[in-house]
Structure formats: structure tokens, C-alpha cells
């Protein structure tokens, strides 16, 4: 246990959420997304933005609206990040040009995909032999300066910081599938330390390109249940065969409770618990006894000063890979004991796919929306339950439920685990 024990910071500010924005394959904005999630709709479809011949997985929860489909993935990611951050700032009643708050940005590593490298070779009009040396000699004259800014790992973050007027040096985060949750963690910590009253989080990932599909296919992580696409993502099912890549973004305005009240804003919910751990077992697999995941969940509960009995709903990491869902089940069983098969736990990924770098933030926003509406979003495609995972996965249909505390899980590929406790009310003093 490395996190500070509860009560150690009696004077630390409570951190609330005063603005949220979200974009997924189901649509843009809180309204569209919540309606679709509560209806159990799937955003997974056959990929049409590029030729999928030769690939084993040809489906994804892609974002194709607003002419985003044909952009390089880095630009698509940047555009949806701007959209959700704008939505969150609007809701929080903050300016979109000079917000003067620290900014934490979760994104995939920027890079040129193979298609863009090839396009560059063709555009540069090069003669054979074409290799990096020749390509660099042809492109280093300044004519391609925009590509430098576009493909820097800190490029998107810099442009967001400059457009929205963030204070200080913006922070770019990548802890794989836990990225969005790590951003929320960093922002919450900054407010708790009284370094700022306000912090912005945005996490976005729109990197469905052939390169990404090939990479995850090589690790046997993706579902190959291509037909019909909307049935492919089936977390906690016996026949689950991997996750479906998704695109998405979410933003949160985090604020000290005192600052929100002073500005006359109504908190949408509170970030009350942060828990983390790193797995030391294997680069792509969790410790078989789920020890590291249990530790992260336990740390989050302890940081929030709540017990497992206080958690009304778990927003699962729930990728739908055979391994993840089994580990997550073991952890829930270890922590929730007698309640393990009755505490509702559902996976948004059954509908919106795995939004990777964005997932932690997207699922935090969905958790807060669930709390606001008093409705549990379902795990869809739950036709063939895995008898070894005796859980209430909110099968197939949403239902009403009063929520006080939600546990949101994110387990990064590479061993970074982050769990958040989100609460409707300000913590009792």
C-alpha cells in the first residue's frame, strides 16, 4: 500500500467534475451517447475507411462522422479531442480560449502510418533507390515543416494547450489502456495538492488504421467475429474472443469543490478515490492470481475511504479478451466476496469497443452519466454466459439503479492498472 492513507490529508480539497464531453462511434456529445448506451446500441461496424482485404479483423467502432474518417489518425484524434474539450468547457461555463488551467492529455503515440509514409514517398517524387536516407535528404528543406509538428509525440497536446489557453506546460500521458484514467489521476492529485483549483483532462484515440489492426492481431488480442460486426464484442461471455478496436474521446473539467461553489456551478459528481499498481509478472499478461489488479482496486477504495459494500456499480475494464475478463472476475471476487455475483458490473466496450488511450476517460464520463441518470448501462451481446465468471453484468438491457459510488477500472496493456472511485456526493467529513 503506497497511497496515502485516508485521513492523512484532512484539509485536502474535494475534487468534483463540473464539465464533461464525450465522442464515440455512437455519436458526438453526452446526449447522443447516453441515449445510445442506455438503449444498448452497438457502434461496431464493418470498416469502410480503408481496404480491409488481407486483414483478419475487418470491424471496428470507428468515428466516421464530420468527415473525420479520411484524416490521418493523428489529425482525427486531435479533432475529436477538441470537440469533447469544447463540450466540457461549455458545460463548466468556462471560456474556450483562455481557460488558464493545467491540461492533461491522453493520446496514442503519434506516428505516420504506413499509408502516410508511402504517400510521402510518392509525393516527394523520388527516384529509386528509395530509402530513409534519400527520403530525409529530400524532405528536410522545410517544405514539410507541418509534418514535424503533426507527428511529434507532444504535438496534439501543444496545439490543444495553445488553442484553449492552458496554463504552464501541458502533460501528455500514455499508459496504454489506462491512459485516460492516469490523466484523471494526475489532475485530481494536482487539485488535492492545492496547486490549482481547476484542471482539464482530455483523452482521445482515433487510431483505427491497418497498422493498429495488424499489431493487435499479432498479439491475438482482437475479436475475429467479423460477421455480424455488432455482435463481436462480448465481454464476460463464454465465446468471447478478444476486443474490438474503438475510437473515442472524453474530457472532464475537474475542480475543487470550493472553486465550483464559488463559481456557482453544480458538481456533476466527485472523484473520490485513486488507486494504482504496476504488474511485475509479464509484459502482456496480468499476474495469474490478479494480485496487481486487486491492489489497484483496493487502493482506490481506501483512498475514497469507502468499503466494497459502498460500491453500487463497477464500470469494468471488460475488454472481452479471455484473459482480461477472467482476471477482472478474480479481482472482483477477492474484493467483493459475498457480493461478487450481485454487484452490477458492465462493460461499455461491448457497445463502443475498446477506445484504448481514451477508454479510462470515456468510461469515467459514462460512469458519471449513469450516476446522473440513475441507470446502469448494459453489457450487450451477453447470450452465452461464461459459467466461471459468475457476475451480474447488467445483461443486454439497461436498468434503473440509484448510484452513490462507482468503481471504474482501467488495466493498461504493459501492466499499468488504475482504478477510480467516482461518487455522486461530496465525501462525508
Amino acid at each position: 500500500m503506497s497511497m496515502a492513507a485516508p485521513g492523512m490529508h484532512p484539509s485536502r480539497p474535494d475534487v468534483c467534475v463540473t464539465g464533461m464531453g464525450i465522442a464515440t462511434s455512437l455519436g458526438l456529445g453526452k446526449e447522443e451517447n447516453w441515449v445510445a448506451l442506455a438503449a444498448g446500441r452497438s457502434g461496431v461496424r464493418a470498416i469502410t475507411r480503408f481496404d480491409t482485404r488481407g486483414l483478419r479483423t475487418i470491424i471496428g467502432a470507428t468515428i466516421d462522422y464530420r468527415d473525420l474518417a479520411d484524416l490521418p489518425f493523428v489529425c482525427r484524434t486531435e479533432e475529436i479531442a477538441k470537440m469533447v474539450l469544447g463540450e466540457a468547457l461549455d458545460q463548466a461555463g468556462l471560456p474556450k480560449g483562455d481557460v488558464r488551467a493545467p491540461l492533461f492529455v491522453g493520446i496514442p503515440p503519434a506516428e505516420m502510418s504506413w499509408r502516410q509514409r508511402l504517400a510521402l514517398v510518392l509525393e516527394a517524387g523520388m527516384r529509386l533507390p528509395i530509402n530513409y536516407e534519400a527520403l530525409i535528404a529530400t524532405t528536410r528543406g522545410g517544405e514539410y515543416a507541418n509534418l514535424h509538428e503533426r507527428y511529434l509525440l507532444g504535438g496534439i497536446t501543444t496545439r490543444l494547450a495553445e488553442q484553449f489557453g492552458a496554463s504552464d506546460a501541458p502533460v501528455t500521458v500514455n499508459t496504454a489502456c489506462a491512459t485516460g484514467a492516469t490523466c484523471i489521476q494526475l489532475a485530481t492529485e494536482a487539485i488535492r495538492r492545492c496547486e490549482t483549483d481547476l484542471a482539464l483532462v482530455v483523452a482521445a484515440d482515433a487510431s483505427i488504421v491497418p497498422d493498429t489492426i495488424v499489431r493487435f492481431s499479432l498479439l491475438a488480442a482482437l475479436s475475429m467475429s467479423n460477421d455480424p460486426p455488432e455482435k463481436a464484442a462480448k465481454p464476460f461471455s463464454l465465446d468471447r474472443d478478444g476486443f474490438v478496436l474503438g475510437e473515442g474521446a472524453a474530457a472532464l473539467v475537474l475542480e475543487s469543490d470550493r472553486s465550483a461553489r464559488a463559481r456557482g456551478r453544480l458538481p456533476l459528481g466527485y472523484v473520490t478515490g485513486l488507486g494504482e499498481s504496476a504488474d511485475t509478472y509479464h509484459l502482456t499478461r496480468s499476474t495469474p492470481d490478479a494480485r496487481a489488479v486487486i491492489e489497484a482496486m483496493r487502493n482506490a477504495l481506501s483512498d475514497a475511504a469507502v468499503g466494497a459494500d459502498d460500491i453500487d456499480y463497477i464500470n469494468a475494464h471488460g475488454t472481452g479478451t479471455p484473459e482480461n475478463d477472467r482476471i477482472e472476475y478474480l479481482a472482483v471476487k477477492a474484493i467483493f466476496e459475498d457480493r461478487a455475483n450481485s454487484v452490477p458490473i458492465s462493460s461499455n466496450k461491448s457497445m463502443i469497443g475498446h477506445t484504448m488511450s481514451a477508454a479510462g476517460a470515456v468510461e469515467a464520463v459514462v460512469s458519471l452519466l449513469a450516476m446522473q441518470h440513475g441507470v446502469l448501462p448494459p453489457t450487450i451481446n451477453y447470450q452465452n454466459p461464461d459459467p466461471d465468471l459468475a457476475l451480474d453484468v447488467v445483461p443486454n438491457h439497461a436498468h434503473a439503479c440509484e448510484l452513490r459510488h462507482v468503481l471504474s477500472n482501467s488495466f493498461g496493456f504493459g501492466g499499468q492498472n488504475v482504478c477510480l472511485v467516482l461518487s455522486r456526493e461530496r465525501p462525508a467529513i
Partner: protein
Amino acid sequence: MSANGQRDVWVTGIGLSSSIGDGAEEHWTRLGNPTTQELRTKSRAGHLIFPAAAVDLARHIPNRLDAKRWGAVQSLGVHAAGDALVNAGLKGSTELLARTLVVVAGVGGERDVALDHSIFRDPTRFENSSELNRKIVVGMRPSLFLAQLPNLLAGNISITFGVAGGSRTVMGEELAGVNAILIARQLVADRAYDVALVGGSFAADREDLLLLYGFGGFLWLGDPIPVWSRAEAGGGVTLGTMSAFLVLEGADHAQTRNANPLCRLVRIGASHSRRNPGDVTRVLSAQWDDSSPNGMIGIISGASGVAPITDEERAALTQFASLPVRTPGSLTGHGMEASFPFNVALASLALQHGTFYPPFPGDALDPSPLSPLGRVVVTSVGHWRGESLAILESIGSEEKR
């Protein structure tokens, strides 16, 4: 003890590698003999870079296949992290490492250049998407993907040494190195963690990175002359392979376990300007602090050689005070994400020894010797964005106990 109930943060271990050596001791020895200093460069894709020195990876990575699979960034990073833990007396301290934080300035990883080239060579054929798909499905190795993910250096550190408390990876060129140390320092000062292992790793012999920095016109095309001398010819960076990790520890915790600290990490200032003329001076002077040092002050500049900001930094530094400056980038090349951790590690080493290392030709703005050394300011003006500095100072012997 400082304001807000935060505690002092000490550097209790460092590990580093670069073109000039493997480990702290080799670096100190080579830096101490400037006249015998020879620039070790090699050519990559038509550009000179500073390659890694011979490094004994077996010290922390017993399986040679692991190092090969991980690629240079991850294996040099794990290596420096291991050295830092040994230096702090923590390698093998299972219980403590299980509640230690790791923070990494991550980079996008390796590419399969042969595969890229085989696609470049036949561009019209691979314009056909299904041909391209089939090519990469067959050509790509799973281990390459793992070497490409920025967060997997942290993953490998956790696995190799059992560092399990928490794990954060930040990205974004030079600023990633600054933010990594800033985040680790804050969490230790705030008592969220007693110990944090923080650093970064950078491989200069990457064609795809030369392409990226080349797009922006940031590459220095000539011989690697000192960074301060490049402005007239347009400026530019020479990339250098390097890795550096630091163990940051709460002072009270270090005292309790009788650790031998190198120095105190007083403060990190991280800023971001739009690089209008004068911005670099304005931002650095806002962070500048030479009040009440307990000894003489030296500066380690992270200047990259890029024009005009390198000249602007030089003007700013000479304007603040006439202080001895060292510029490792002239000797080791510029290590992007890893450069700030590397320079903070060098500053820690100098404070541990109580003296600045001597200047080498063209390196120092002010070559005066400096001993006893009480404080070091480390600057980082990123090649495109980010203006930051760290302040470190020596620890009195009565404090160490």
C-alpha cells in the same frame, strides 16, 4: 521541510549511459579529462549522431535475447534504471520496490527499417491497399510492436526490478523528461510515495526520427561543433543516444534507512511559450532563482543547438549572472526525451562530488572552475516547445546523518 507540509526530496541514486560512457563513474572520469575527450560519432542515414558507448547490459538484463527484443530504447532505459537502484542501495529491496513509483519519459519505439524500405522501394505496387495489408501482416513481428509502445519501458522496469507501486508514462519530446521528473518530485514531496524511480531513454540511430526532425529543419548537417557555435550556420541538433534514471526519495525516508544522498532536488519549473522572440528569456527569468544557495552556483544547459533559441538562451543565461555553464549536448548530442533526466543526473553527480567538471573546448560560456559547488541550475529549452529548469543543491553533512 517546505510549505504546505511538503517534505524535502533527495536524489539518492542515478544511472546513466551515453556516447561517453556506461554508468556514473565512467561519465565522471571522462568528463574530468576534457583534453582527452574525443567526440564519438557515427553516420546514420546521412547524418552524424552520437551512438551508445559499449554498455554492459548483462548487469541488469541477464537474458541477451530480452535486450535484443526490447530494442535500444527499452534496454538502455532498463539498464540505467537498474544502475540508479543499485546506486540508491535499493536493487533487490523487494518490499520497498513493491511500493515504489516509476515515471518514464516515453518515446515511440523502434521501426523495422528493412520492412519500411521494402515498401518504399515499390511504392506503386503498395498503393494497392490489400497488397500493403498483406505485406505488413506477413512482415511485422509481435516483438516489434511491443518495442514501439512508449509505456513498455516502464513495464519492463516493473518486471525486471519488481517496481510495483504505480506507473506513469508521459510523452512529448524534451518536455516529457521535464514533466516526468516534476510529477515524480511532487508525489514524493506530497508523501504519496516514499521513493520514485524516474527517467528516460532515447536512441539516436533511428531513421524515422531523423525524418521527423528533418521535416522541421531541425537537424544539424555539419560536423558536431559545440551547440553555442551553430547559429551562424543556421543551427540544428545532433541527436545522441542516452538513458538516465534517478531515484527520488523523501529526505526523512532516506535518513531513516541511512541512504547516502547525492543532492536535494529543490524545484522544477516547467513552462510552455509560443516561441515569440523574447519568450525564452521571459520564461527562464520567471523561473530563475539564485537566492540563498549554500555554495557556488553552476549551470548545466540543455541547449540543443537549434537557432535562434540557443542564442536566446545564451543571452538569458549571461544576463542573469556570470556563472559557469556546461553544455553536455555538445559532447553527447541531444537526447530529446532523455536529455533533461540525463542533465539532472549529471548535476546530481557534480553536487555529490562537490565540484563542477571542467569545461571542454567550446562548451563553456564561462570556463571558471567551481568548487565547492552548492547549487546547479539545469535548463531545458526544447527544440520546438517547452522552457524549463531544475534547481538542485548540495546537502550538508549534518543533514545526511
